[in-house]
């Protein structure tokens, strides 16, 4: 009993279906297939079973990159949300020149990750950047060597990422705050609740959807993290800032190891599915309830 209007919707989605099936599924299938071969620079059809995966998981670089992307992802998304929330709160306090502040906080989002990485690499370079400048002012023991410090380099990436992304969160959260009824403020004021407490206990819980949307936008970039790493640390020092996307790129081209690269890609995709599937399932269930209304 399908109607022709629904047919129009189906037809309109055909190009997207094509992309999803041919590009997303097709190439993934192809990648998975190659991950079981010993392909080097060109695809080969000599199957080696799980050898590439064995190699993958005995590679310190790969293991480090997985760990790094998790650390980076959590801190980057969390950092953006936190700073974005704080900035939004500050701008919400009826300050002067709000739009100037807002523009200043938002502009880094227009910068590419490459530029972001390059500039922060400069700023955090101990011989050139902030450390050198502070020391030249006479504070000789000042240390800010994150980019070159094995233990801190990942935080340098986070810092640069937060610089770039916090503004977006700020805008989203600020618009969420402006959408909250003024009466709640009045109620809280009459109850004598301090301002910080209002933001923490009343405003913040209502910003859940806004924060989730902002978080999702940022998270979509995390697994793809590549440009900023290449521009800033190129994975170093040691393996300190190695990330999966870079590992795959290195093996795909520079190291001419298609088999290993596609094995890494497969693992990554499985990881993504493990994140997306439960989320989708929850949404699906919610959608069902909605449809039944």
């Amino acid at each position, binding site marked *: 009993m399908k109607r022709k209007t629904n047919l*129009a919707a*189906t037809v309109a*989605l055909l190009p997207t279906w094509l992309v999803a099936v041919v590009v997303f599924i097709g190439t993934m299938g192809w990648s998975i297939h190659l991950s079981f071969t010993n392909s080097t620079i060109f695809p080969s059809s000599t199957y080696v079973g799980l050898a590439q995966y064995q190699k993958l998981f005995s590679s310190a670089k790969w293991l480090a990159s997985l760990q790094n992307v998790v650390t980076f992802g959590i801190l980057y998304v969390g950092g953006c949300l936190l700073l974005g929330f704080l900035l939004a709160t500050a701008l919400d306090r009826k300050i002067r020149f709000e739009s100037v502040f807002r*523009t200043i906080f*938002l502009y880094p989002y227009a910068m590419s990750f490459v530029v972001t990485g390059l500039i922060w690499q400069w700023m955090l370079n101990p011989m050139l950047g902030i450390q050198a400048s502070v020391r030249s002012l006479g504070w000789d023991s000042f240390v800010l060597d994150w980019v070159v410090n094995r233990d801190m380099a990942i935080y340098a990436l986070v810092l640069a990422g937060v610089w770039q992304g916090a503004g977006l969160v700020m*805008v989203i959260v600020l618009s969420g705050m402006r959408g909250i009824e003024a009466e709640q403020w009045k109620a809280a004021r009459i109850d004598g609740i301090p301002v910080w407490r209002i933001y923490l206990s009343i405003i913040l819980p209502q910003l859940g959807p806004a924060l989730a949307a902002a978080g999702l936008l940022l998270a979509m970039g995390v697994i793809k993290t590549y440009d900023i790493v290449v521009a800033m640390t190129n994975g170093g020092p040691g393996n300190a800032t190695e990330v999966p*996307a870079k590992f795959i790129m290195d093996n795909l081209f520079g190291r001419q190891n298609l088999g290993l690269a*596609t094995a890494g890609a497969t693992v990554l995709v499985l990881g993504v599915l493990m994140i997306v599937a439960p*989320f*989708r399932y929850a949404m699906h269930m919610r959608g069902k309830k909605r449809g039944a209304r």
Partner: protein
Amino acid sequence: MARLHPNGPRPTQITAGRIGLYLFLIVAVLFFTLPLYTMVVTSLKTMDEIRLGQIFSLPSKLDVSAWITAWSGACMGTVCVGIRSGFWNSLAITLPSVALSVFIGAVNGYALSLWRPRGASVLFGLLLAGGLIPYQIFLYPMVRAMATVGLYNSLAGIILVHVIFGLPLVTLLFRNYFVSVPEELCKAARVDGAGFWRIFFEIMLPIAVPMVVVVSMLQFTGIWNDFLLGLVFAGRDNLPMTVQLNNIVNTTMGERTYNVNMAATILTALVPLAIYFLSGRWFVRGIAAGAVKG
């Protein structure tokens, strides 16, 4: 001290909290502007001054030669025309890519949220997953596919690639927006006899203008700033500005001219920056209008 007898308007007070607030804002402004400041002053210095290693100091005298070199004189290989040719290439790639991806994404979002044809949720799941996967994985087979259909190294090819990789995010945003549009609007239009496309063009698209602004800006920034796809798919006649920037900035064994690099970097970032500086409030308005929500 005797307290005043309260009378008339309450005097404004400068509280500690207020001072702390502005202090926080000033520190934040420093954090956000320092990098841009550094880039600008470095681009205005001579290389000799840069080698002194005082990156925050103001240039001893303004030297715009780096800017001129970056725009029209910097060499890429044996060609020394600066990044200006890339500027036009970037425009030629970005504008159609943004227009197409926003249009298709809007149609997708509309169809997925208000019509929900069979398989809609499967498709949406696929797109969501596709949006999370690093596109480096798709490069190799995509190159082959594009070559097979004769689009490799062409403007149409790079535009198509940008549209494909832009679809997940754009669709997601539009879907979330249209989900919040009352279904009754769609029903009313159907009672009025409008079909899928008519409802889209005459009713939904006009409603979604704030969203179109936000998504266009996000897409514009993303595509303009892309390096890898442009490098791989555009072909030598269509290389975007970012690839040319890389050719200037990234050198393995050549000498580095930081002032030119910085000038070229700022030039490359200028268009998206201008968009955010000039239309930032439209962006903010679009988001406030519900462009991005859970």
